[in-house]
């Protein structure tokens, strides 16, 4: 699997999303390249989560075209769509673990549905995934309500990675984690990207994540992508919101 950096794994063209009379996304274009970690930032309420959910297909769009793995999601048949869904993993903001299933069952759920393999193999894969996200096998029989916030995020990531997806969507993965936990999480995402050749689409507000984990950053404002590029491009930008974001007090603290 030679990574082809130029080839776009997600191609979003001219999409518009509207809730009632408010237009949240207005003719937005975005490309996510294979193998990169794209950090997605923007003011609160700008529609970052809406874009993520639109790409995944949870929010209907008014117009536009979304291609994931080269498949146009509107034109795709149900089988094609399932094929695409098998190849991506999603980490929701609150984890969205199934509260009535244990950690083991949560992680095994997608595997069990798609692959007919033995219980022993399922257990081994579950332990491997837990290990990858830095958790011990002992947590396997706990319920989500018995986990800490950081552990919930890790288990949710393990579930998102259960089927070895090529693309993962992370919605604010480090929010609610302590700085050390957040740092570990960034490191984890980077490691996984290296070992599994993942493409990562990460909505975040964490400046540290942007600096340490992301290859490229896209900024959402007024329903459009107002800038996209490396962290250096962002710092050089003259856009008022970007200047504030990357040169504010907290940004200086991170860089300093």
């Amino acid at each position, binding site marked *: *699997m030679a990574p082809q950096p130029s080839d776009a794994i997600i191609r979003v063209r001219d999409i518009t999303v509207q809730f009632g009379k408010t237009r949240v996304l207005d003719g937005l274009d975005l490309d996510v390249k294979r193998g990169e970690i794209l950090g997605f930032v923007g003011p609160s309420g700008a529609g970052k989560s809406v874009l993520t959910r639109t790409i995944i297909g949870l929010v209907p769009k008014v117009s536009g075209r979304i291609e994931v793995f080269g498949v146009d999601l509107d034109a795709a048949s149900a089988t094609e769509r399932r094929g695409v869904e098998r190849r991506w993993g999603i980490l929701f903001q609150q984890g969205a673990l*199934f*509260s*009535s299933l*244990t950690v*083991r069952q949560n992680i095994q759920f997608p*595997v069990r549905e*798609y*692959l*007919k*393999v*033995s219980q022993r*193999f399922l*257990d*081994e*894969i*579950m*332990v*491997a*995934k837990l*290990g*990858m996200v830095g958790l011990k*096998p002992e947590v*396997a*029989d706990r*319920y*989500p*309500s*018995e986990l800490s916030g950081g552990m919930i995020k890790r288990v949710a990531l393990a579930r998102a*990675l259960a*089927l*070895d997806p090529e693309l993962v969507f992370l919605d604010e993965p480090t929010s609610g984690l302590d700085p050390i936990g957040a740092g570990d999480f960034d490191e984890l995402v980077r*490691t996984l990207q*290296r*070992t*599994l*050749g993942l493409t990562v689409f990460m909505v975040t507000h964490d400046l540290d994540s942007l600096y340490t984990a992301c290859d490229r950053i896209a900024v959402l404002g007024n329903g459009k992508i107002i800038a996209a590029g490396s962290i250096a491009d962002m710092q050089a930008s003259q856009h008022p919101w970007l200047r504030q974001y990357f040169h504010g007090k907290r940004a200086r603290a991170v860089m300093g």
Partner: protein
Amino acid sequence: MSGDPTLERIAQGDGLALCAAGTWTARFAPVLERMVADAEKLVGSRPNIFIDVSQVSKLDTFGAWLIERLRRSLSQSGAEAKIAGLSANYSSLVDEVRRVSTAPVIDTSSVSITGMLEQIGRAVVSVGGTMVELIDMLGAVLAAAGRVIIHPRGFRLTSTVHHLEQVCWRAVPIIVLITFLIGCIIAQQGIFHFRQFGADIFVVDMLGVLVLREIGVLLVAIMVAGRSGSAYTAELGSMKMREEIDALRTMGFDPIEVLILPRMLALVLALPILAFLGAMAALYGGGLVAWLYGGVDPEAFLLRLRDAISINHFIVGLIKAPVMAAVIGIVACVEGLAVQGSAESLGQHTTSSVVKGIFLVIVMDGVFAIFFASIGM
């Protein structure tokens, strides 16, 4: 893009090479697992076994783990199995799965006869616990009511009115409809059977006593337990799940006073009103059927009704209503506050709120029947 996975055995002197090739990914996991399980049987057959992965075109966690598993099981009988030809791309992945411990994780959710007996035992013991919890909640609600009486400013009027609308006003159509139909059915059945003795008119006695004393209030209480008791449990339970109740407590509010007292009060006020409306609807329905089906005209019906029933029947019915409401409310609130963090737990407690509510309402009805009979009402 690349072919199906294969695992070939190539003899090399006294050694054996297992050549893995093709796509070793999750997509082929079932096939891969079978191949690896077959190959694992080769353990100890040759002194020197190694796994050649140079022909593997694509590898993910599933494939990497299976190769690692194969390596481990081939190594067990003394001879060390090696992995050869690993490309740099995948070495970090294989390193990652190498750290996975094979220590079997014990699934604790096993089912056994002793486990089932234990569950039955625990359930029986928990009945006593439930009674204590109910009495505990009754005490807490009464204490909160006492505090509110002393400091009327703590009373949540808006909330009470809101709940009164939910459990009383909005319940009126369905309660009236159902009790009306029940009244019709009782009258129809009564006339049908009494006619054989020429005792048509006594259907009025039966209808009056049954509806005012028993069926009216019991039926309404059961419907309220199903309709409002479950709603209370679900509301309080989801608030508990999202730590809203803890938030209230930390702000210095008593959840019993803020959440439970208004709900209880609304229910205690609502049930007598609904029971009265229900009884009237049932009498109306019964009267209608008696007239159209039994030929008892409304005037005769009313005359007979006045003779057949006394105000006592009506009072007995209405005295029971608030008590039943309190039972339903207490059960619903106890169950709501007992909800744990999962959606399943919320479902379980809502179910048990309705089941326990209805059960206790019927038990109360029996107790009242004995009581009123012995005091001659």
